[in-house]
């Protein structure tokens, strides 16, 4: 599970860039019927996550209670309330991928990066998330890396994926 925001805690204040991203998401979605999901997607596309401090302005713009917005964010697996690593690897752990040994891939990430589902590697390169079926069940095991689907993922192939995440030219910026 994702660590979720504690509604009682004071959230980290928003940066100017985050405020701007929230304004963009609100402007793009506020007039849609059932606007909250598209709005949250739009925000997360820009920031990589939904900062807890964005709840009050979103609630106000849509005329919802803060509890409503918080409830939606925590209900859906897609929405993160903490920043992800530079790359997000979503490893499928559903049946067809299990039939082709996806547990070995999960173990391999654990061995190599010391992380399990919902965690980010210490170097900030990779966040590993569980996903339940990517529709690539005839070429299982499968994963999504930054939205790009991979199939027939062997340990070697996974290593190549992780290599490109870890050595992406941004290692030093930490």
């Amino acid at each position: 599970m994702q660590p979720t925001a504690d509604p009682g805690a004071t959230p980290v204040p928003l940066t100017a860039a985050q405020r701007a991203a929230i304004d963009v998401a609100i402007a793009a979605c506020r007039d849609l019927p059932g606007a909250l999901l598209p709005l949250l997607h739009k925000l997360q596309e820009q920031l990589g996550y939904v900062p807890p401090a964005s709840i009050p302005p979103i609630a106000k713009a849509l005329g919802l209670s803060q509890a409503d917005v918080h409830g939606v964010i925590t209900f859906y697996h897609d929405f993160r309330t903490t920043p992800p690593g530079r790359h997000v690897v979503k490893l499928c752990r559903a049946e067809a991928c299990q039939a082709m040994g996806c547990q070995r891939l999960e173990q391999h990430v654990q061995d190599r990066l010391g992380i399990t589902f919902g965690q980010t590697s210490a170097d900030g390169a990779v966040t590993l998330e569980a996903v339940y079926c990517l529709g690539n069940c005839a070429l299982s095991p499968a994963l999504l890396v930054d939205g790009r689907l991979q199939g027939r993922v062997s340990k070697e192939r996974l290593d190549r994926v992780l290599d490109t995440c870890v050595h992406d030219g941004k290692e030093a910026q930490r």
Partner: protein
Amino acid sequence: MTAVKVFVPIDAAARSVGADEVAAAVQAEAKRLGVAIELIRTGSRGMFWLEPLVEVATAAGRVAYGPVTAADVPGLFAAGFLQGGKHPLLHGKTEELAFLKRQQRVTFARVGVVDPRSLRDYEAHGGLRGLRAALAMAPAQIVDEVMTSGLRGRGGAAFPAGIKWKTVAQQPPGQKYVVCNADEGDSGTYSDRMVIEGDPFLLIEGMLIAGLAVGADQGWIYLRSEYPDAEVALMAAIDMARREGLLGKSVLGSGRAFDLHLRRGAGAYICGEETAMLESLEGKRGMVRPKPPLPAIAGLFGKPSLIHNVMSLAAVPTIVEKGGAFHAGLGVGRSKGTLPFQLAGNVKHGGLVEVPFGMTLRELLYDFGGGTASGRPIKAVQVGGPLGAYLPPAKFDTPLDYEAFAQAGGMLGHGGIVVFDDTVDMKAMARYAMEFCAVESCGKCTPCRIGSTRGVEVIDQIAGPGPQVALLRDLCDTMTHASLCAMGGLTPMPVLSALDHFPEDFARGARARG
């Protein structure tokens, strides 16, 4: 000399094993050699063990090469593949491949054949005939054809479509919706994805016809977020349909309006359940609604809504074009038409098999699937997604029809078939079924929310027959009978089928994974 047509799939699964790299290599090599080609990106033919599958249009028809890597491409040109030349990767004429030839593709007739980004290509291959026919019919006539067809919902519950159409059509005029369930959450299924990526206008046409029949001028599509490529494909098709006057204020100049909204899910399996999907479309948590009211009477935003799976809607254009009787003439018993089965998991020839209902599971697994990918014996298959039963080889002669499957203690669901070899630990699979239910439960009712977590704990304590097994059966009984929806209600199906058919796997304690 005219350019030779070369086809490379743009389907997400084909791309996941290098189709884009192959397409780029084909372009580059053609340029280097100075030969004229027309590269067309299509959907997938659904023979995934051959992906990336490259086809070339020759005088004798399309021929297939696969699985092709970018490194193979210069060799293919050298072997004269643009004329269908001999090469170790050549399989001959695509249509003659046994895997395709034995199928009866109705819904999938165009998938892998046409350019999904061209409405013109869609029409050139028989598209829009159903819609044109529907525009000349009275709404009640369209509903009658769907009734006659015997079409049952392909999303899992197999409810007769005609009855829903009639109910929505009979609601007083006013705002109504057609809602397409493209949440395709079941492991082992990808037919919705393949149609959306490979023939998106088919879905649009099906929704348009449904709108005409029930009096809805808006359609909503709920597409899972796990399908980014499908979203791009569908958005592009909707944009083109608007530009070409297929969608909008006057559909094909008829004066009747219809437009589509595309919404992305957010990674919740339960949002495939139709009422949870409606909540999600309304921007709320995906909590299951009690029924009644039926969505056909009070659905999306409280308005009458015709909700269907992608495959159900994709069957509609043919039903209207060729008549309900054509559809009813395929299949067996009360299972009419064809079902696009999806072979998945540990299977040698994984892919899409569209056949009329009635073939046996064994034929599908061996004649099409060719047994396991690992070469080991098949121990179990799960049919119908994560809420479907695990079946042992003794049940493989069950005919693939809804009633026969129910009788065998299973369900066909959305037609996904996941194959496991003899290394699978069925107790671990039973445990996973409970765990999945715990992760994905909407939390509205106790048997499902608490029962699933309890189920994991109980299974962990099982080491042979005894009180823990009895406890598990009790728990499953409660979940089956006291859950509000099929999430909690059917999770016992994989659990108990594993227990009943593979008791030996429950005879020992936890096994090391790996």
